[in-house]
């Protein structure tokens, strides 16, 4: 095959560390990226709706600045960013080491951080609902707020299920090419969910609080 340093698909490439899997990676990984791009468009449309409804859709209900609490948002952000980093470490363990223990360990850390994020976000929602009566049925703004953050929440939850399935498959099948490629796709999903979250904490929470 051609130059081993050339990339075949976006994201981490296996290159020379596992030529066999690398040779099979191109269309699967590309396909997953295409899927993710479609998913990003879905988020984009939600963001666009949020931009309008968070300004026009308050309808006498609570405004963003009244219900957001940046401390919680900051914690959620830090936890999720760290999980993106640990997912990166998992991917490197996959690429460079043939011991599964390290990979499993980093996946478990990532899952724990992901779980913490979900817990913090859920608690934050509950707080808003309890202290401000801020439930989605109150206003257009709250509807899209929960839809946007909720869609992200569902994505993270799905990725957690995926981590679980991968842990089982690593135990059962070892690091065969299919399993490796699945972990690599999982990592891409995880990083992109981080990208979406950057949009959420900036354009939803920070923008909401400054105004």
């Amino acid at each position: 095959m051609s130059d081993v340093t050339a990339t075949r698909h976006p994201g981490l490439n296996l290159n020379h560390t596992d030529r066999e899997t690398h040779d099979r990676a191109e269309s699967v990984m590309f396909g997953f990226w295409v899927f993710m791009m479609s998913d990003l468009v879905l988020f984009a449309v939600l963001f666009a709706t949020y931009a309008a409804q968070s300004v026009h859709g308050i309808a006498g209900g609570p405004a963003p600045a009244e219900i957001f609490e940046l401390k919680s948002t900051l914690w959620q952000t830090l936890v999720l960013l760290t999980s993106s980093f640990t997912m990166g470490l998992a991917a490197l363990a996959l690429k460079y080491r043939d011991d599964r223990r390290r990979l499993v360990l980093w996946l478990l850390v990532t899952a724990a951080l992901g779980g913490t994020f979900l817990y913090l976000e859920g608690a934050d929602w509950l707080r808003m609902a309890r202290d401000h009566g801020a439930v989605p049925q109150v206003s257009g703004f709250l509807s899209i707020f929960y839809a946007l953050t909720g869609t992200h929440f569902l994505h993270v939850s799905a990725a957690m299920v995926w981590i679980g399935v991968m842990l089982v498959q690593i135990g059962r099948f070892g690091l065969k090419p299919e399993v490796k490629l699945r972990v690599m796709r999982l990592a891409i999903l995880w990083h992109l969910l981080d990208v979406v979250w950057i949009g959420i904490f900036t354009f939803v929470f920070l923008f909401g609080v400054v105004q």
Partner: protein
Amino acid sequence: MTKGIPVSEDEGLRAELRSYAIGGILSLALTGAAFWLVASRALSLRTTLLVLGGLAIVQIAAQLRFFLHIDLRKSHRDDLQLILFTALIIGLMIGGTIWILFNQHARM
């Protein structure tokens, strides 16, 4: 450490680890800056919003570069086309929607 890894792989690992570390530190720093900006109210509203938007874009770029390995020079052409086209469509959809809905609202 596992045995039998050639030196060059170790180097590769170190380089990639460094890339992830840079990405991690950058995103923490940019996040910190954004939250600090809001907490301290150091700038006027307008400037704050602009700077926040800028920080988010830089941070997204950092994620793409250091965690997702998107490199404008080294990437395959198909891949770049895909990502740039997505960016274009997202820009059109978000920009168009905001333009239209705010204009309609202003005229109501």
